[in-house]
C-alpha cells in the first residue's frame, strides 16, 4: 500500500487553478520530487500535504488514514500530522538556541526531559552540529542554519519528511554537499521524502521518482532517467536539461529544416502535419568528419555554419545555423570542433518530434 496518496487533489486561489486534479501515490521510503517552474503548483501541493492549505477538491491520505478530504469534509491541522518539514528560508527561530530549536517539537509532545536531551543530541550529531548546541542561529552560516532546520525536522523521527526548496538559499558548492547529506539521513532514518525544487539537477540527483508540473497540471511522473530520455511532451523536454527545438517543414513524412535548401531529410512521424518541431539535446548532435554525402544516410548529415563558439570550461558550446534554425551543440573540449565562421557537417543522433503547439 502506498504511504502517501493523493486523489483528484485540486486547489484554487480565486479564479486561478493552482493545482488541477492531481493523482499520486508515493511509496514508503521513496525519495519523490516535485519539479517545475515557479508558480507551477508544486509548493501549493506540498503545503496541502503539510496541511497549511486545505484542498478544494479531492482527498489526501497517509498510511491509509485520511488527512484532508473534500468528500468527507475533513481536515487535520498541520500540528497533528507528525511530519518533518524544512523550508527554503530555513525558518529557524532566532530567539532560541540551536538546542532549543531542535528540542521544540519534542517539548510540544511532552516527551520526558532526559529523552529530549538524548534525541536532540542524536539529531545534532547526525547533522554535524554537536559543537553548536548553545549558539544562536543568527551567528551561524546559511549551511549551518539549514542543518538546524533538518535536525529539528528529524528530531521527532517522522515517517514523512517535506522539503520545500531546502537548498536554494545556499551557494552552489554547499548545495551539492547537502544533497548527499539529505540522502544519507534518509538512509539512516528511513523516512519518505517529498522534495520540492525548481532545480532539475537537484531533482535528478536525489529522486527515486519525480513529478514534473506546469500550470497546476502533472506533465509526467517517472524515474529521472525515464523523464530525461522519454519526455512526455515539449514542456518536459524543454524543462529538463538543455534542448533544441528546430522548426521543420514536412511533406509526405519527409522533414526538412525550415529555410534550408538541404536535400537531406528526416523521417518524420506521419501524424504531425505540415509544420512541426524536431527536438534534440545539444549533447546528442555530433560534428562529422567524413565528406558530406547528403541525403543517403540516416540520420542524415547536414551542412551548417558555426555562428558562435564559447568555452565553458570543460565543455565547448557551439551555435550553428541551418536555414532559419539555430542549433546549440555541446561537446567536451577534447573533441576537435570547427572554428567560428566555418562551414561544418553535423548529425543529430537522437530526434524527438513535437507538433507546433
Amino acid at each position: 500500500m502506498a504511504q502517501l496518496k493523493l486523489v483528484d487533489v485540486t486547489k484554487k486561489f480565486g479564479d486561478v487553478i493552482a493545482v488541477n486534479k492531481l493523482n499520486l501515490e508515493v511509496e514508503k521510503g521513496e525519495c519523490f520530487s516535485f519539479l517545475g517552474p515557479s508558480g507551477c503548483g508544486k509548493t501549493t501541493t506540498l503545503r496541502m500535504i503539510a496541511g497549511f492549505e486545505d484542498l478544494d477538491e479531492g482527498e489526501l491520505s497517509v498510511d491509509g488514514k485520511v488527512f484532508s478530504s473534500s468528500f468527507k469534509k475533513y481536515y487535520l491541522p498541520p500540528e497533528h500530522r507528525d511530519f518533518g518539514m524544512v523550508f527554503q528560508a530555513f525558518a529557524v527561530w532566532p530567539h532560541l538556541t540551536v538546542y532549543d530549536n531542535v528540542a521544540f517539537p519534542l517539548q510540544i509532545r511532552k516527551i520526558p526531559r532526559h529523552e529530549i536531551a538524548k534525541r536532540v543530541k542524536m539529531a545534532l550529531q547526525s547533522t554535524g552540529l554537536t559543537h553548536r548546541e548553545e549558539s544562536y542561529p543568527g551567528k551561524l552560516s546559511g549551511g549551518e542554519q539549514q542543518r538546524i532546520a533538518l535536525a529539528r525536522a528529524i528530531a521527532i523521527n517522522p515517517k514523512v519528511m517535506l522539503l520545500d526548496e531546502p537548498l536554494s538559499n545556499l551557494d552552489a558548492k554547499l548545495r551539492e554537499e547537502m544533497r548527499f547529506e539529505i540522502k544519507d539521513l534518509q538512509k539512516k532514518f528511513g523516512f519518505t521524502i517529498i522534495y520540492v525544487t525548481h532545480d532539475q539537477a537537484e531533482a535528478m540527483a536525489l529522486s527515486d521518482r519525480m513529478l514534473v508540473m506546469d500550470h497546476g497540471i502533472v506533465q509526467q511522473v517517472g524515474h529521472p532517467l525515464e523523464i530525461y530520455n522519454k519526455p512526455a511532451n515539449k514542456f518536459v523536454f524543454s524543462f529538463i536539461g538543455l534542448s533544441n527545438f528546430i522548426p521543420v517543414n514536412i511533406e509526405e513524412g519527409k522533414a526538412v529544416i525550415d529555410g534550408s535548401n538541404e536535400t537531406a531529410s528526416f523521417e518524420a512521424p506521419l501524424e504531425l502535419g505540415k509544420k512541426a518541431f524536431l527536438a534534440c539535446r545539444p549533447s546528442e548532435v555530433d560534428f562529422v568528419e567524413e565528406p558530406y554525402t547528403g541525403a543517403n544516410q540516416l540520420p542524415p548529415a547536414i551542412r551548417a555554419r558555426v555562428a558562435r563558439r564559447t568555452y565553458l570550461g570543460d565543455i565547448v558550446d557551439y551555435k550553428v545555423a541551418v536555414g532559419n534554425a539555430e542549433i546549440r551543440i555541446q561537446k567536451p573540449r577534447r573533441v576537435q570542433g570547427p572554428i567560428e565562421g566555418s562551414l561544418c557537417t553535423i548529425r543529430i543522433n537522437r530526434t524527438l518530434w513535437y507538433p507546433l503547439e
Partner: protein
Amino acid sequence: MNTGNKLSTANIVLLFSILILVVIVAVPVILIFITAFFENGKFNIAGIAKILSDPDTYQALLNSLIIAAGTTLVSTTVGTFFAWLVARTDLPLKKTMKALFLVPFMLPSFIGALAWKVLLSPRAGYINKLLMAIFGLSKAPIDILTIGGIIAIESMYLFPFVFLQVEGSLERMDPTLEESARISGANLFTITRKITLPLVMPSILAGALLVALYSLAHFGVPAILGTEKGIYNIPTKIYERIYASGGSFNAIRVGTILSTILVISAALILKLQDMLLKKGQYQIIAGKSMRPMVMKLRGLKIPLLIISILYIGITVILPTVTIFLVGGLKTYGLSFELKNMTWNNYLKIFQWKMTKDAIWNSLYLSLGAAFVTMLAGTMISYVIVKMKVRGKFILQFLGVLPFSLPGTVIALGVILTWSGRFGINLYNTPWIIFVAYIARYMAFSIKSNSASLSQVSDSLEEASRACGATHWQSLKNIVIPLIKPGMISAFFLIFLPALRELTTSVLLYGPTTRTIGVAIYALNEDGETVRAAALASIALVIIFAGETIIRKFLARLDQAKVKVQE
C-alpha cells in the same frame, strides 16, 4: 584624485554644516547645562538638590514619570492588540481598519484633550451632565481632570506609535517561522506565546519607548487637563514657573534643571532603544512574500469589529465632532440645538486679529522652517552619507542630538541663546520661534534625507563624474533628482507637525507672535472655550487637508519606487 581646491570646498561644506548644527543645536543645549550646573560661575550642586527636593518640582517630576509610565503601558497594550487584530486575524475590512487606526495621529492631542474636557469635565462636561440626568446622579460620574484622565487621553493619541511598529513587523515576518512551529506540533496559542510574541517583542518595546519619550516631555494634554487641578508634569511646571514670574532668570534656571532631567531620561530611553534595535532585532523578514497565518475569530469576528469601530468612533470622531459643534455654539454651555448654533464664530476667526495672526504666523513659520530645515538637512546628510572628509563624526554626533531634545528643552535653550547674550535678541519676535522649529525638526530632516541618500549608490555619482560632469553638475543632475522625493517628504514631515506645534511655541510666543497651538491654548485658558474650539476646527481642516495631500503624494512615491525596482 583630490586636488587642493576640491578638498577645501569639501572642508567649507563640512565646516558650514557643523556651524549650523552648533549654532542651532549645540549652543542652546550647552547653555542649558551651564545654567543648570553653574551659578555665578561656580559649580552648584546644592542649588540643584534644593530645587529637586522642593515638593512642588519633585511632584512634577513624579507626575511626569507616572503619566509616561501609564501612557506607555496603556498605549502598548492597545496598540499591540489592534496590530495583532489587523495583521493576524480574519477581521473583516482589515485594510480600512488599518488606515483608521492611524487616523488618531492626525488629531493633535491637545485638541483631543480640549474636546474631552468639554465632554467629561466634572463641572460642565456634556457626557457627565447627560449621565447625571439619566441616572439621577448628584455628582459627575467621570472626572477627566486627573492623572488617570491625562493617561487615558494621551494613550488615545499615542497608541499608533506602537500599532505601526508591531503591525509592520507582524506583517513582514516570515510566515515559515510560525509554520515550522506548527508542523512541529504546536497549536496557535503555543505558537503565539513561544514564537510570535518573542519575535515581535523588539518592535513592541521600540514602539513603547517612542511613546514613553513623547509622553515624558509632552505639554499639551497635561496643560489642558491637569493645570486647573494643580497637576503638573515637567513641561507644564517649567511653563508655569516661567509664565508666573514673567520670564525671570530664576524661573528659567529651575527650568534648565528640570530640562536636564528630561534630556538625561530621553537620552537613556534612546540608548535603550538603540540597544534593542541592534541586539534584539532578529532577521525575521521574509524573502518570499507569502500570506501569514491568520487566526479565525469565528463568533468573535463581528463583536471585535464593532469594538474596533467603536474605539475609532470614540477616540477620533466623537472629539472631532465635539470640537466642531462647540465651535459653532453661541455661548459655551448651551445644548447642541440648532437654535444655539451660529456660523459667525468660524467667520470671526478670520476677522479677530489674534486668531488671524495665529493662523498666519503658524503658516509662514512652519513653511519657512520646513523649507530651511529641509535644505540644511540635505546638505548635512550629504556630508554624513557621501563625503569622505575628516571630522564628519562631529556632524554625526550633532545630527542625532536633536532626537533626544524635548520641545520644552529646545525652547529654553533657544531663549538662553537668542536673548541678547551673543548680541542678538530675538525674544518676542517670530524669529525665535523660527530658530526653535529648525532645531526641533532638524533631526527629521537629517533622518529622511540620509535614508534616501544612502539608497543612491556611489557609482551613480561616479558614473556622472566619469562622463565629464563636475562635482556640482553631478549633484545637480544626478543626486538631487534622485533624492528629491526624500527631500519633499522631509519638507512635509516638518511642515505638518510644525503647523500644530504647541510645546515649544508656548514658551516663546510674544504679544503678536502666537501660533495656532498657542492661540487655542490661550483662548481655552481664558475661558473662551467656544473661540478655542472654532480655531481648533479650522486647524483640523488645515491638518486633514495637509495629511491627505502628503499621503497621496507618498503613496505615489511608493508606486514609483516599486516600478524602479521592477
